[in-house]
């Protein structure tokens, strides 16, 4: 890619115990783009977002954001950098004891001493942008899934971040809410001049707003390119994933010790099903 990269990952490895989640990931995320990160669940997509946000540290490899090597940042500097990032969590992660308004106001209250009327203006602007100014007084328990996600989105961008992470923003929403969230992601990215990293398995919705996509499988990036490139990809894995085929390079069957016929024979003999 020719454009300047905001986020760069170089040979990033990360393991949970003996289980390697990421086995050498290279990625360049161009400034200003909406980049999709796709892959099977449990494949390490959330882990990758946490690595970029510095809440997890890789065992080896380098992660640079705006040229800064995350490994070399102190805890304080990391917190400072994070003020320029926003994340929409998979389950919204709204503070249940605060109203929608106070949820969105939370980062502003913690980081700045703003006069109350200015703070109200800033929060109302973001709530208006997600179409929920009218829900300012509601508590998370009173919001539908889609509304909760939109409030969380308003909270993620209230500090005008340069880099926004979306972890499965479409999962568990009705089609109308999916459409709303997708158009909001696109609009916010343009309005804020931000860069967005979007984790999703919703291929159609994601490709409708993404400029570039990565497919993660087996702990590595197996394909990347514009949505059109990816669709035309001749990688069997990429085709299986994008086409939603149940069997292919990623097998339908979880590996078993015995083949099916032998297992049936044995269970017949033992009088039980294993």
């Amino acid at each position: 890619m020719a454009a300047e990269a905001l986020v760069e990952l170089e040979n990033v490895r990360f393991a949970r115990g003996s289980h390697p989640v990421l086995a050498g990931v290279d990625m360049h995320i161009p400034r200003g783009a909406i980049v999709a990160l796709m892959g099977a669940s449990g494949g390490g997509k959330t882990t990758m977002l946490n690595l970029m946000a510095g809440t997890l540290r890789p065992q080896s490899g380098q992660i640079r954001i705006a040229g800064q090597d995350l490994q070399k940042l102190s805890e304080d500097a990391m917190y400072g950098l994070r003020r320029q990032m926003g994340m929409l969590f998979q389950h919204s992660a709204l503070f249940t004891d605060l109203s929608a308004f106070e949820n969105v106001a939370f980062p502003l209250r913690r980081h700045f001493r703003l006069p109350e009327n200015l703070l109200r203006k800033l929060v109302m602007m973001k709530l208006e942008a997600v179409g929920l100014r009218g829900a300012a007084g509601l508590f998370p328990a009173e919001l539908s899934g889609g509304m909760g996600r939109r409030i969380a989105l308003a909270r993620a961008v209230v500090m005008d971040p340069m880099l926004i992470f979306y972890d499965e923003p479409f999962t568990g929403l009705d089609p109308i809410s999916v459409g709303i969230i997708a158009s909001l992601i696109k609009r916010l990215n343009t309005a804020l001049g931000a860069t967005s990293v979007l984790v999703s398995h919703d291929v159609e919705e994601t490709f409708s707003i993404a400029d570039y996509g990565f497919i993660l499988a087996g702990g590595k990036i197996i394909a990347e390119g514009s949505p059109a490139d990816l669709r035309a990809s001749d990688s069997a894995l990429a085709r299986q994933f994008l086409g939603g085929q149940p069997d292919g390079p990623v097998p339908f069957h979880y590996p078993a010790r015995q083949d099916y016929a032998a297992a049936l024979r044995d269970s017949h003999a033992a009088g039980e099903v294993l």
Partner: protein
Amino acid sequence: MAMLEFIPQLGRRALQTVPGLGVASRFLLSSLLSVFNRHFSFQQLFRQIYGFGVRSLILMVVAAFFTGMVLGFQGYYALVRFGATSALGTLIALSLLRELGPVLTALLFAGRAGSALTAEISSMKATEQLSAMEMMAVNPLAWVVAPRLWAGIISVPILCAIFDLVGIFGGYLISVPVLGVDGGTFWAQMQSNVTFSGDILTGLFKALCFGVVVTWIAAWKGYTARPTAEGVGNATTLSVVTASLTVLGLDFILTALLFS
């Protein structure tokens, strides 16, 4: 054979526990020290102290009242045989101030406020609220954990003092109006035999130690709970059980050290 396996198992268990304690201690220290973090808020601290007070005050008062009354009956029964009922006030006061006040306050606090604290922190973790906070560059130790820890440490000695006072009053109600012990002697004996630093302060010091231990365990169990509904439930139960046993064990150690 069983014994031979038991010993290395015990050793392995100990080796697993010791580094665990180290991590838990670091958690305690860095939480307590984050009063200096810019995200620590005294408003949150006062709100937590108020919350602990509201949650446990009535419970403490009722429990203390009954404890004091039972002490009155049992003490009278023991003393009347030696014709020493004049010492009943002293007996009640010393039992409460040195032992029952701090221990029962801590146990009730673990059951009421400690369990609620574990449930709150672990469900914040399970619903990614703590991670969200970290993503917003707000340290969850400073904003969530520290005010709750400090509030517990401050509240338990205060609740203990209230427990002691109400307990003594309950004991008085049984001893004097019901059992007919002379009121003047009851108070006079108590006054001349209870010392401020030896009995009252050491009792409150015990309560302070229990406050640290109970809130530390409650916060730690919540912070390290598995982030699932089941994890929240388990952590809450474990928090009460661990805190209660630790209080009883620590009480033995403190009593041996302070009053020997």
